[in-house]
């Protein structure tokens, strides 16, 4: 459907990639860990190595949780837009097929939050 309007209704979207000074948005959520109330939004260059995302910004964002230090990354399950996804930690975001405003989630089998409450 299109918006009902009195005349031509065309405006530029507010969040296209060109507005982020060389970065692209990547959203990351950790399943079963709702102590973090929502998935995070990050601005990263497309050339950033996936492994550096995990070791740097993800460590900073999720590290407060006692489960984070327990993660065995070899066992983590990843999803992109809800579908299984296998990131290569040595390749860049772009090489992993991640585009502006993509959303990825990870599940860490065996780790289900504070006292198993998914917090």
């Amino acid at each position, binding site marked *: 459907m*299109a918006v009902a309007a009195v005349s031509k209704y065309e405006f530029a979207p*507010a*969040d296209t990639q060109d507005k*982020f000074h060389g970065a692209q948005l990547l*959203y990351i959520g950790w399943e079963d860990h709702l*102590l973090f109330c929502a998935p995070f939004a990050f601005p990263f260059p497309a050339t950033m190595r996936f492994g550096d995302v995990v070791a740097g910004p993800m460590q900073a964002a999720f590290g407060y949780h006692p489960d984070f230090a327990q993660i065995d990354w070899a066992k983590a399950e990843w999803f992109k837009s809800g579908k299984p996804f296998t990131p290569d930690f040595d390749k860049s975001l772009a090489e992993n097929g991640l585009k502006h405003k993509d959303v990825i989630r990870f599940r860490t089998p065996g780790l289900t939050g504070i006292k198993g409450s*998914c917090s």
Partner: protein
Amino acid sequence: MDMTVAKKKLGLKERYAVMTRGLDWTPSYQKMEDIYPYITYEGIKIHDWDKWEDPFRLTMDAYWKYQAEKERKLYSVLDAFTQNNGHLNVTDARYLNTVKLFLSGISPLEYVAHRGFAHAGRQFPGPGPRVACLMQSLDEIRHAQTQVHAVSNYNKYYNGMHDFHHAHDRVWFLSVPKSFFDDAITAGPFEFMVSIGFSFEYVLTNLLFVPFVSGAAYNGDMAAMTFGFSAQSDEARHMTLGLEVIKFILEQDPDNVPIVQRWIDKWTWRGYRVLTLVAMMMDYMLPKRTMSWKESWEIYFEENGGALFKDLARYGIKMPQCAEQIALEKDHLSHQAWSTFYNYAAAANFHTWMPDEDEMAWLSAKYPNSFDKLYRPRYEFWREQAAKGNRFYNKTLPMLCQTCQIPMIFTEPGDPTKICYREVDYKGDKYHFCSDHCKAIFEHEPEKYVQAWMPVHQIYQGNCFPEGTDPTVEGFDPLAAVLKYYHLEHGRDNLDFDVSEDKKNFAEWRGQATKNI
């Protein structure tokens, strides 16, 4: 004794007719469509504006007289409140955060409602709805002013309220109520009337306005309570107008029914998402609770709203589908919202805290299906960490829903352990949503929502720093710059209640008022 009457006074009904509809005229040298350019494009068909039943026969002169009297009373109570240090009579200084939430989140909406009703009234060719909109427009600006005046007494003593309107236009979570109303006033006049006049003022008002006013009464806030009582007669009028609008539009043409149904579906959901703030206020921010969010939803929406939609069934209007999902969320909404503000306490204009033992017990009793299992362990962990000096302050920005602009905190309907993710590809870009309902609203008018001013994205685009800020310098602290842009002072207006100046000052001042120290 003989009484001579020079001229017979007009009866109430005639007087009303002369002073409202009698003021209208039919233009002769301008075309109707040039004078009322916005009246057909939404697809609503009106055949006879005279069928509009004026829900209240109030003329402008009576309006002034009546409102002036009410405000004289209100301001004398506010004077007494100020002179007697009424701010020290609230239950507990935590209550003040409710006042901050109301002033920065709701009062600016009263002002926008004033503009919206003025605009809608100007666009309607019928004199009946025009006069009704004019009066509601005036009510709304009076409410904005009287709320600001009532709360200004608190601003003299407590933090976070000093620049509420500046905050409303900028602070991340305030984009939720702001974008809700912006969506309404940028719609056509009929959608505006259905969104605000009906869905908000009629269907949801008891869940918005009443909790704040009864919360004020329960917590010794005479200023906000008096404002609430003063506004009560206006609110009753607004509700009547909202219902009359719906009935009038539906009776005019059967083609109007599906359009109105879509608007009711959309605005019930949009309004409900804004009520997330009220839900957490009721369950967490009132030291003396009135009732739980869940109870309030059951009474005011499921029972009263259910009866309303049964009444509207004769026009072919059905209960909005979203009611099913809302029923599933009622055990979780307030807890998910409070967790969010606990996460982002460093970036808000009010304080948050962990509930004490008694409050946890109250929450367990009110939410037996969810609290102990899902939320208590989280809170106990946070409380232990805070006691060790490791209070959780989430410093990474959250992903937001493109429609309601709330962080993606809501869980899958029926599974409160999984965040609900929905997405749409539109013209080469991805858009994300918290729910099927927010997604459907976007899909109906994507051109509108792709323009959304999403606070998180705006921060990353560099648009939320004070002028002259250079984000490329070494050691740049984005949170500090954003707080400056919000006009909030770190360590004063934000962070946990336990370390707040409000807590310290209130205890000291109340001590001076009640003890010999």
